Each structure stands twice: as C-alpha cells, then as structure tokens.
C-alpha cells in the first residue's frame, strides 16, 4: 500500500518536473522512485491497511510477488528509455508519468479483492495506455494504434462493467470471496451470474489478447512506439494475467464458462502461432508471438492447483525478460537500417556485433522453449500442470503449436547468423548493452536456478 502511494506521488512529481523543464533529472528521479517502491515491496511494509481500503485490496504473497515483477519490468523499461528518448526533449515527462500511473493500476490489479476495485484498476492502467500508444505524434500508424486501442478498449471496458453489474445483481456483492462462494453454490443454474461471469472474463480476455478478443493487438503493438509496445507486452500482460488468475483461482467455474475458456485457449494457440508463421516484420512477429504465449498462459490459468501461481509467475517473468531484450535489439537494428523492421535487417549481426547476436539467440531460444533457457522450463511446467489437470488434447495441441513457434523463432536466429558482406554497423549504447546482457544472462540463469524466481 505504501508502495502504491509512493508510485502515485512519483507520477505527480514527474509531471511537475516536466512543467519546470527539468528534462535531465527526469529519469534519475523516476528510477530512484521505482527503486524505492521496489524496496518497500521487498520489505513488505504497510501491506494491510484495511482501514483505508475497507478490505477491497489485499497484498498477500501473490500480489506482492507480481507487484515486484511489475515494478522491475518498469524499471528495466525506464533504463531502456534513457537511450530511447536520448534525443527527445519534449513530452518525456508526460510519457514517463503516464507509464507510472499505468503501473499503479497494474499493481492494484494484482492485489484486488473486490470487483469494483478491479474495474478501477483496469481503467487506471488502460487510459494512460490509450495516450501512450499515440506517443509518436507525427506518425500516422501511432495515431491509428491509439484510436484502435481506445475504441476497442472502451467497448471491452463497457462489457466488463456490464459483467460486473450482472454478477452483482446475482450475488449482491462485489467481494471476490462472496462471488467465488456463489459460484460454488449456485453455479450453472444462475443464468444471470453465468452471463455476468462471461462478460467479466471477456473483459479480461481482451486485456490479455486472447482470441477472439485479440484484434487490437497486432496493429496496436506495431503502431505504438517500441518502448510502449514492450510496456504493453510485459507490464500490462502480467497484470492482466495476475488479475485473471485471482478472479478464477478459487472459483468453481461453471461448465459453460470453462468450456468457453478452453476453446479460447485452443483458438489462441492456433491463431497466434499459425499467423506468426507468415510474418516477416519482427515487431509484428513479436505481436503474434505475444498472442501465442497468451495461449500457453491460458492453459496454465485453466489448471488450478497449488503450483499454478508459481508457474504463471515464472512464465510471465521469463517471457517479459526475453521480450524486453528483443525489443531493445529491435530498436538497435531498426536504427541501423533507418526504420526497417524486416527480419532480414538482422543479417550479418553475428559478424558486426557477436555478443548481441548471441544474446538475441538466447532470448529467441527462450521464447521458443529450447532447453537450458527459462522458456523451456516455463513451457514444460505449463504442460505438466495441464496434463495433471487432464487436458490431454489441448496439451497435445499446445505441444504442436510450440513446435510451430520454434520454426518462426529459428528463422530469425538463422537471419542473425547468416553472413552479410555489407551488413550495417550496429551502434549499441552502453546502457542498452548492459540491459540486453542482463536479459540474456537472466533467461539462462533462471533456467538453471528456477527456485530464485518463485512467488
């Protein structure tokens, strides 16, 4: 709770610093503030302030773990921003402040115990993102991304709110425990509740970009500034899954809802992977691979058990580390090739920047799920969970789609390791070099020592 307050204050302070024109001090202050929030979260101070929240939030180990991860992702991205916004003078304060505000929403999403708070948190997180997606004001595609995200997001929010209202109408409470108890008691007989749950889950499915609520994600991911895309792919996705699992963790899902979720999982796996096969632009490839990974995460989500939160956490963190690293690599190659995002711009990378190429390989192998990278362990644990839960066919499909995934990641690795005589020199700033090295080492380290990454 104190971390939440610190983060909110940090956002306001950053806005004011922007007004005062203190451009050069922005990032140091932001990073210091995030470190402070992280310290508070690690120390676990001031967790239960029931008087203030009236029991509508609970920062238990689950929420605390995910909050730490969210703050760390933001920290990584802010360090990336040092280089990303090195030439930009204007509006940086607003962008950083909005990212902090979105982070506040994301942290609340991990710790809510009340559906109304969940709705507020989702909105607090989303509204800054609608603006951030349009961050490149002179780019049409960025504007398109913003409008698309805003329109579809508003619809999703509307349905989400409707769902919450229907659930309330059925069990006369916003409290999560009461709703879960009602699901066990009334379950499938309560049509109103069923419909409410259906809409609520659709709202969350929109945020995690599960098929058929994924239509916004490729365009928005492609059009947004890379830093924001990375933010959506890590912070937003993690928060959405944390919230999603918190909602259904102790809930005995009615058969219809369960079947719907299983179907959505299968479709997400199929569509994400198969469409990613046809992508030649790296950013768009990552967008579809994000959908594909949503599929694997949904599979874990649907297999509740004592180990599920750990698996989700492990998967999300290792996935985020790999994607942050790859988005930085994308920025580097995009600069060298003057804005080209085609994967052939990776060619000759092993010659011009061997270490970057090796890290890129590690990160891609991790996303593909090849052993001795964290991605393998993450997928392996998901398969283990889902087979324990008895989803034989869906797991079979997931395994097959993991193979498809390997194909499109390996193609990129192949490009990075294909010699190219006139390859453009890659300029890597020190901070970016450190960041991608960190990500690359982390995905191997967490594969060897996964116990370091438990909730």
């Amino acid at each position: 709770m104190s971390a939440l307050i610190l983060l909110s204050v940090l956002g306001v302070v950053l806005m004011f610093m922007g007004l005062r024109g203190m451009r050069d001090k922005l990032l140091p202050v932001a990073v210091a503030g995030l470190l402070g929030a992280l310290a508070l979260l690690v120390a676990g101070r001031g967790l239960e302030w029931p008087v203030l929240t009236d029991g509508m939030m609970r920062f238990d180990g689950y929420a605390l773990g995910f909050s730490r991860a969210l703050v760390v992702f933001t920290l990584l991205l802010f360090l990336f921003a040092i280089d990303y916004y090195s030439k930009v003078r204007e509006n940086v304060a607003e962008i950083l402040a909005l990212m902090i505000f979105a982070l506040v929403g994301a942290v609340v999403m991990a710790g809510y115990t009340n559906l109304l708070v969940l709705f507020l948190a989702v909105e607090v997180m989303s509204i800054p993102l609608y603006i951030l997606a349009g961050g490149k004001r002179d780019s049409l595609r960025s504007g398109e991304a913003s409008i698309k995200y805003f329109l579809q997001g508003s619809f999703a929010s509307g349905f989400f709110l409707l769902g919450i209202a229907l659930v309330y109408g059925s069990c006369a409470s916003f409290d999560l425990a009461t709703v879960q108890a009602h699901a066990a008691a009334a379950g499938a007989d309560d049509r109103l509740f069923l419909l409410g749950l259906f809409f609520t889950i659709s709202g969350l499915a929109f945020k995690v970009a599960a098929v058929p609520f994924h239509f916004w994600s490729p365009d928005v991911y492609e059009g947004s500034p890379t830093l924001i895309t990375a933010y959506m792919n890590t912070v937003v996705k993690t928060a959405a899954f944390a919230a999603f699992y918190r909602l259904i963790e102790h809930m005995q899902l009615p058969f219809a809802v369960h079947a719907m979720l299983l179907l959505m999982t299968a479709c997400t796996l199929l569509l994400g992977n198969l469409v990613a096969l046809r992508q030649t632009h790296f950013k768009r490839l990552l967008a579809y691979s994000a959908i594909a990974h949503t599929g694997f995460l949904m599979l874990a989500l649907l297999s509740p058990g004592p180990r599920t939160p750990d698996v989700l956490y492990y998967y999300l963190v290792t996935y985020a580390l790999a994607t942050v690293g790859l988005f930085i690599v994308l920025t580097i190659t995009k600069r060298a090739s003057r804005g080209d995002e085609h994967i052939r711009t990776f060619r000759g990378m092993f010659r011009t920047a061997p270490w970057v190429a090796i890290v890129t390989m590690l990160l891609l192998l991790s996303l593909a799920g090849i052993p001795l990278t964290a991605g393998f362990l993450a997928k392996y644990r998901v398969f283990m969970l889902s087979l324990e839960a008895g989803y034989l066919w869906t797991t079979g499909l997931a395994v097959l789609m993991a193979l498809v995934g390997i194909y499109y990641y390996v193609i990129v690795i192949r490009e990075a390791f294909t010699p190219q005589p006139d390859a453009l020199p890659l300029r890597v700033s020190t901070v970016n070099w450190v960041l991608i090295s960190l990500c690359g080492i982390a995905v191997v380290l967490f594969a060897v020592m996964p116990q370091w990454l438990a909730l």
Partner: protein
Amino acid sequence: MTALLLLLIPFVTATLLMVLRPTERARGIALGSTLASLAVALVLWAGFPGGTVTDLHTAWLPSIALDFSLGHDGIGLLMLLLTSVAFPFIIGAGYGERLRHPSLVNALLLYTQCFLYGVFLAQNVVLFYIFYELSLIPVFFLLLYWGGEHRRSITVRFFIYTLLGGMALLFGIVYCLVQPGMDGSMDALGRLQLPVGTQTWLFWALFLAFAIKLPIFPFHGWQPDTYTVAPMQGVMVLAAVMLKMGLYGVVKVVLPAVPDGALYWQRTVIVLSLVGAVYAAIIALRQHDLRRLIAYSSMSHVGVMCAGLFAWNHFGLTGALFQALAHAVLVLAMLYITGALKERTGTSGMGAMGGLKLRMPRLAVLFMLVVMNGISLPLFQSFVGEWLVFNGLWEVDRWLTFMAVTTIVLGAIYMLYAYQRVMLGPDKWQLEVHDAGLRDHLVLVPLIAITLVLGAYPGPILELVDGPALTLLSLFP
C-alpha cells in the same frame, strides 16, 4: 564423480576455444580434449562393476521431478565408449577438411560431444530430454555456417523435423511424469504399469522422436539432404553418434515405459524398419555420390538395428547394440575415405573417379578392408552384429529374417559397385593424386583394427550389454 569429467572436459575446452580463438592450434587442442575424454571413458570401463552405477546425484528441482543425476549401466557405458572413440577421429578428420574458423568448428563439435555424454549419462528423464534437445543446437550452427548449397532451408528443415519428434517426446515424458509414483528417474519408467490402451498411443509419442533421429522409414525425409550439405565432420557426428541416441532412447525410454505399447506395435515397427532398410538399400544402388550412398546405406543399416531391438529377445537386443558400435566405426571410416577422396579429386561424385588404385594403392587396400566390414564379412565386426540380429528376427518370424538378409545382399552390391567405380577400371581421368599419408593411416588403421579385433573377439562388448538386455527382457509381458 569421474563421469562428471566427461561433461566438463569437452565443455570447458569448447568454451575456451570460443573465447580465446586460437586459430592455428584449435584442432590440436580439441584433439587433446577428446583423447582425454577417451581416457576417462576407458577408466570408467576398467572400473565398471556391472549393474547400474550412480556417479552423481544432486537434487535440482524436485517440484518438477528434475534431478541432476548421472550414472551408467552397460548400455550407457557402451554408448559412452562409442562417443569417446568416435570423437578423436571426427576431430582428426578436420585436418583434411580445413573449414573456416577452426576454433568455432571445434568448439561446436566439443559442445556436441558434451551434450551427447549428457544424454548417455543422464539418469533422470527430464535431464535426458534436456541434453537430447541441446545436442541439436551446435549441429544446427555447424550446418548453417559450414554447410554446402541450399543449407539455409535444409538446416531449418532438419531442425524442425527433429524437434517435431522432440516435442512429441516432451509430451510423452510429461505424461509419464504426472503419473502417481513417478520420481523422474529413468528406472522409475520401468515401474510405470500404464493401462494397455494408454500405452498404445503413448508409444508413438515417445517413439516418434527416436524414429526421426534414427531415422526409420517413413520418418527419414530430413536425412539425405542433410547428409549431403553438412560438412563432413557434421555428418560424422550425425551418423556415427547422434543416430545412436535414437537406439539408446528406444532401449532406455520407449521399451521400459510402454512395454505393452511396444508389443502392440512390434510387427508394425519391425516391418517399417525393414521396408525402410530394403528401400534405402535399393536407392543406394542408384547413387552416384559417395556421401549420398553413405547416407542411404546408413539408413539401411539403422533399419536392421531398429528391427533387432524390436525383436525383443536376447539375440536381437544384444545384436542391435553391438551393431551400433560397429556401424559407428564403419561410418567413420567410410566418411573419412570419402573426405580423403574429395580432398584429392575435388569431388565425391563417383563418376569423376575410377582406376584410382593405380595411383593410390595403399588407400585402395584400406578402402577394401572398410568395404569388407561394410558388407558384413565374417571376422569383421559388422558380421557379429548382423548375425545376432538375424537370429533375433528368426525367433519372431523367418520372413522378417529374409527381408533383413536382403539388405546384406543389396549392401554387398552397392558397396562393391561403389568400390569398383572409385578404385578399379582404367585410369581414365589421369588425376595427379598422392597416396594415403601418415594422417590417413593414423585414422583408418585404428578404425580397421577395432573392427577386426571386435569381430574376432566380441566378448567384452557383448558382456556389457548382456545384463541390461536381460533386465529389459524381464519387462516383456
């Protein structure tokens, strides 16, 4: 702890080669490393008491049934010896190949060796899988960087083909691991006792990976092209050692975990293997390129070995495992000769050779000895293995033996025909080539010596596989 050295020696050497890049001395360092590994393997053999030896057991991740436990039984030791014997020759072949960036090539080869040791030492199913997949990565880069024409697409095809099996294997392994009472050790696979209905489909999930790796018909689509474009050392690794991972996997994973499934599909697999063996032998007859000929002959031999395993009797099992070693030695020698010929004539196409025995009589003799091993003449190593396999198949069905023997006949035809086209006949091309030198003798003579010694006295190797084979047979329902 000695076994841990087998993992560490190649790994550390490879990493040093990657970092320090000693271009001139890279091959020498790598050769030294492989010889050191060979010494360690021989020490293991000398001190092998029988049964299953646990070298190391450290809990790693109990929650997902992953322990870092290394050990070996007779079969594992045989595979370790095979790997240890093969790699010095593979590195040695590099002196003739002269690939670019020798430090990188040798580092990749040594990484492969390390991961292969890992496969054969792993006593935990997940650890086994991890090493199994890892061994693919260095080979991927060997193919991608040093391969021939069209290597980009062929490499990816090879990779995906193999991983298709790998993913199925992962599914099968995870399915076994979530069963009650499974602690993740390889031994526990043999105590699974799954219902027969489950075993019949689980068999394919587990077997597919090894069927592709071997490869048996009809899962061989990746093999000929890969063998053609890969650099010689890469083919040597694939054919001499990696292929044996398939046999090892069948013996260690498939047969213990799903005995009823294996019994249910026994005929199917044997017939597929033998059909593939005959088919490959017929294709080999029509090849004009020595490397493609070796690729198909390798597939033909492997088909017979796989059939031997699935005969599931004492003859078949021991024969197939013995034959694994014999085949490794044979393929190394054949490929080395192909490389030596290419080094001299600039091609591996047999159409551009002929009458070479006049110009290189010593190499012609060595080649003849290798060919004699290849066509399984008595007193050569291959004869022992083939003979045992045929006996094993006879106990299942004599018609199967008939099919298997056909491959020997065809093998004799294509081997001798190849020899004829390369070495005999008039010296029509008038090539200025020099005869086998010291390096060629250093590689070929030991290989031929191994075939002759083990052909005359196969006891030590057969003893190794005897115990584990009996244990496997006790699973026979």
